[in-house]
């Protein structure tokens, strides 16, 4: 039973206490609820004064490590009171650092308590860890269940209970999760098995290390890979085993034009033999022709570059024609004298048909990745008449490409992206709705295609004098009579790393 409040004094100023509130956090991780406060300070708790009160500096650090979300909300930038030290301090951000990092790779900030200590000495950067059915919001990752009508970023809510990272930490405490490692970055955190392989870049070399061996300053690749990935990659590409792989393929792929074409080839379809057939959406045939010419120019540049730098044969297409269809049109590139498609283009085509992002692209620099994404966006973009918004539609077997795109957009902090908004049982096509102008601006994309240019000029609001993207999509979700507006319950792809369960 608690002592009489009249006998107690305020923990801040020593005035007679009027009530109990808040809690004390000890350095051993325990907590005690109820601290005496005077009338003046009891109102300020959690607003000006940090809640909880800490036993000492060690307790504060432990709290910051274990409950980053609570820390951010109730402690950061507030007056922190220690039991052992009467002197209050203002808790502020750790100092910003300046390591040179490849822009395509987020930097790992720290891992565990030791890393946190080191952080203040060393440096900063950004990380984006996006995962499967989780979406990044202001308060961390949340599981996609349904479109929120209130959240301004990308509304995602747990239908039963809104959860926080602190909840997951509580799960992590249990003995069954003892083998987990928590990797914390300046933005997000992830709990993974200590022995799980993670692809990182150490001193400009790509390496697979166990999660427990990840060190401060390592660059973590945009997404995690499972243990059998490399094995799978080789098995999935028989042509790479059958044919001797050109030693400088990586160098070729790091060329921005080649990366762009690789992105474009994601829309390749099987056409007449000896032709390269690309499906493109547009309402204007002239626009497709214009884009087709630009693409041909790029192919010419690539063929010159490939012929100069390697022995691989690469003729540019001699002509192209456009064929119209009910939904898509096709750009058909013909090669001189109807020879088969040059080997270099065949390699690119193989990658595209398998639905993988080449390793050389994934591990290259920001500019190359951006060009790849640009190609992907430009050739895939289409206007959805029903939802009055632009979208890209990719077949579900290209989940790796979708994941890569998703990570890139997260990395560039593009928020207005909605995946698989409807048709939960349409298994072969995944639609990604996006605000084109935001994507182009935030990713700093150099536009080749007139349609994309047009979409950006119009910006938020209109395409064909109609409302587009965000407001329209949101208003549709507000109208229950529209019916199919829920995000699929299944994740877009199977997670490569299993997350600790939130609801046991």
């Amino acid at each position, binding site marked *: 039973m608690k002592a009489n409040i009249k006998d107690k004094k305020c923990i801040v100023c020593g005035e007679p206490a009027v009530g109990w509130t808040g809690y004390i956090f000890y350095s051993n991780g325990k907590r005690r609820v109820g601290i005496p406060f005077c009338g003046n300070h009891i109102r300020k708790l959690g607003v000006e004064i940090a809640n909880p009160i800490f036993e000492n500096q060690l307790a504060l650090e432990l709290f910051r490590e274990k409950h980053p979300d609570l820390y951010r909300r109730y402690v950061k930038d507030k007056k922190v009171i220690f039991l052992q030290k009467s002197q209050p301090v203002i808790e502020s951000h750790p100092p910003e650092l300046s390591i040179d990092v490849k822009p395509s790779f987020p930097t790992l900030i720290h891992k565990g308590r030791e890393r946190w200590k080191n952080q203040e000495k060393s440096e900063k950067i950004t990380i984006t860890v996006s995962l499967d059915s989780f979406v990044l919001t202001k308060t961390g990752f949340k599981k996609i269940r349904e479109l929120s009508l209130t959240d301004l970023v990308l509304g995602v809510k747990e239908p039963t209970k809104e959860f926080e990272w602190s909840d997951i930490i509580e799960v992590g405490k249990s003995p069954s999760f003892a083998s987990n490692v928590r990797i914390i970055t300046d933005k997000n955190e992830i709990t993974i098995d200590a022995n799980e392989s993670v692809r990182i870049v150490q001193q400009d070399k790509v390496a697979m290390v166990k999660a427990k061996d990840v060190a401060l300053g390592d660059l973590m690749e945009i997404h995690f890979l499972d243990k059998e990935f490399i094995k799978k990659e080789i098995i999935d590409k028989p042509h790479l085993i059958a044919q001797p792989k050109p030693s400088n393929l990586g160098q070729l792929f790091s060329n921005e034009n080649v990366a762009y074409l690789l992105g474009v080839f994601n829309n390749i*379809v*099987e*056409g*007449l033999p000896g*032709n390269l*057939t690309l*499906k493109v959406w547009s309402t204007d045939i002239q626009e497709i022709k214009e884009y087709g010419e630009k693409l041909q120019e790029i192919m010419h540049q690539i063929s010159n570059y490939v012929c100069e730098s390697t022995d691989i044969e690469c003729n540019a297409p001699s002509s192209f*024609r*456009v*064929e119209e*269809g*009910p*939904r*898509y049109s*096709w750009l*058909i590139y013909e090669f001189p004298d109807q020879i088969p498609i040059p080997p270099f283009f065949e390699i690119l085509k193989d990658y595209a048909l398998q639905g993988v992002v080449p390793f050389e692209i994934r591990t290259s620099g920001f500019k190359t990745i951006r060009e790849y994404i640009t190609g992907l966006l430009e050739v895939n973009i289409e206007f959805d008449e029903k939802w009055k918004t632009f979208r890209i539609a990719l*077949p579900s077997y290209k989940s790796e490409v979708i994941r890569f795109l998703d990570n890139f957009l997260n990395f560039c902090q593009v928020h207005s992206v909605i995946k698989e908004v409807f*048709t*939960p*049982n*349409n*298994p*072969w*096509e995944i639609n990604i709705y996006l605000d084109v102008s935001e994507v182009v601006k935030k990713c700093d994309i150099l536009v080749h295609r007139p349609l994309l240019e047009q979409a950006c000029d119009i910006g938020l609001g209109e395409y064909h004098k109609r409302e587009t993207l965000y407001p329209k999509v949101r208003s549709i979700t507000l109208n*229950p*009579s529209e*019916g*199919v507006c829920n995000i699929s319950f299944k994740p877009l792809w199977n997670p490569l790393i299993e997350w600790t369960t939130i609801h046991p």
Partner: protein
Amino acid sequence: MQSSKDVKFGDIIKSLISKYLKEFCCCTVKDIFYLARNSGYELKLEHIRYYLESLEAHGNIKRTKIARKNVYYLTKSEEHIRFTLRQIEDQIVTMLSKGLLFHTAEIINEIERVFKVGRGVIHLILQQLAFKGEISYFFGLSYNGKKFRLYFLTENKKELEKQIIRVKNYVLFKRLVFPNEKAVEELVFFDENGVWKDLKMIHLDVQDFKNILFYLSYLGEVNQIYFVQGYPFAVPGHASQLESLLKKINSNLEDNK
């Protein structure tokens, strides 16, 4: 106070509603709207909704929710309705189990022959089954750009994927395909191991074959040619070749004349 004109108008709608609900055991608002329009009544959806609500308030009719939408029925036939809805669900599932892919219109026509319910209700039941995961759908596209749904049993998904690959390869090989019985017979002679397979084992009829082609057309894997009678499907690139060839022939014929 309501005028006599209003009362009459309301009475007409009420009598129409009860007439349709007697005829078709359950209807959606849009069902009643279209039925009234076909009989020559120009009504507004809001009016129908208003009088449905008032009839419901008086206890004459009741409503239930299917796929988040209201379905109305007469109070006295409540138990019969429950039974009918369950039967329709079963009927749809049995129908889908007989083939691979079904066009929405095919399903609705089939159900309408057996049960007297509004078309909208069947749509909603299909949606509900899709939400439950018992059936799935994807889109098809006709030569004039009309999009429609093709339903199938979720358990048939793997079989369907196999057939899609077969049909796709067949179109690539033939370049131009008419969806007829001959094409289906030619479709698969050998199984994956190169062994002769009995055609009866394939379980693909012309309608399924056509529907798969519609789906491939939606994905942009094949093109449907609008200028040839019978609207055949072709490999992308073939139609433009054919068109230029036809133009040449026509111009030659004109020159000869």
